[in-house]
């Protein structure tokens, strides 16, 4: 077992857990879980039943984007579409 990481340590790390993501973004755990299950947030998992790890910078940016889209009046399927089209554009550019 381990101690809770400090905010400085979390903000300096490349990967964060869902709990740490809730801590730095102020989002509810249930919301983050829903976004993850809907494939709106991408994560890495070595094996089944191991912790899901999120890339901190990308995921925080994505959560902020989702919040902006929600505020602009889009519903969840529309947000998913918007995120997918963004990802496709990014893929074409690279």
């Amino acid at each position, binding site marked *: *077992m*381990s*101690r*809770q990481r*400090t*905010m*400085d340590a979390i903000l300096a790390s490349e990967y964060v*857990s*869902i*709990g*740490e*993501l*809730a*801590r*730095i973004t*102020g*989002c*509810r*755990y*249930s919301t*983050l*879980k829903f976004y993850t299950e809907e494939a709106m947030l991408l994560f890495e998992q070595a094996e089944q*039943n*191991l*912790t*899901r790890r999120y890339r901190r910078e990308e995921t925080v940016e994505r959560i902020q984007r989702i919040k902006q889209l929600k505020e602009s009046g889009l519903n969840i399927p529309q947000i998913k579409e918007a995120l997918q089209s963004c990802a496709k554009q990014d893929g074409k550019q690279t």
Partner: protein
Amino acid sequence: MKDLTLTQSFAMIALNAQNSKYLTTVKKIALRCMAASVILETLLDSNSGTSWTAVDLRKAALPDSAAYSRSILEPLNKKINSARALSLKRYLKAAYSLSGRRLKKLEMSVADSLREQDLLQEIPNLLGCDLYFDSSGVPYMEYRSNIPEYEAITETIKAEVLDNGPVTDEAICMLWLLRESGSFSDFFSLNDLETAAARMNELYLHSPLAKALYPVRIHHSAELAAKQFLHWKKSVFKKPFAAGINFIYPVFERSQSVFIDTEAWFSNADKRLEDVETRLRKYGHEFTVLHAGSVPIIKIDNLVYKAVPQAIYGRVPIHGVRLIPRIPF
């Protein structure tokens, strides 16, 4: 979010919405668990916590440690007065049975440390505005935790406990503190309770800290029963039918049926609202009218109420309004 210690994090949850002036039964439970959390925090921070079966706190109260830690560790070491390491249970039980004066000192020092960071404030309780609430001129204040910080703490624990993966020592201690303070069922939803209980069993099998901590029970059953009863009573009188009974007989749950008297008899809707506003502002409440009319809907400190006109007939009839929490349909 700020980096808070275990005691500060637990205090954000335990002190929220508690009476800040008096030592009520519910607040006593919270403070006793806060005293236990000081022990756990000290053990987590010091090397002596590695074994967890026999712990030693004799040298833990250092002059540079937080004021709230010293307020518990110094009297505790005097009380126990042992020359050898003791069991974790012995320390936790001793911390739980500290006097009311010690608990008040702990409350003041923890509240001060949170106030310095703007994470805790004292706000007036609406019940203080009630015509029949007699406090002999002492304002009825309650603690209010900073909402984003409160949510960050609670959501982090939920995420750690309900999601797969390792659980930190802080979350293990927090689960135990929530259980001993009787807040476990408030903290987790009905669906999540089963998962949380299963997770605690799993932690008991795999974590040395959980193995030492989870069998320890320090709560007083009578106090917890009183807390659960008050909580149940409040939740019952929030339901529509019971709220109607409480409107007629507010003695059942006064906080859900606050009566504010108006200046004149048979005053019109505008005058009534003006009197209510004057009274609420006098006691330091935020007041917004959402919908005017004969039964206005008003927002007081982020909660929405219906101001229903009522007359009370005693020796002299008193006219006024009764504030009923608005139930969302």
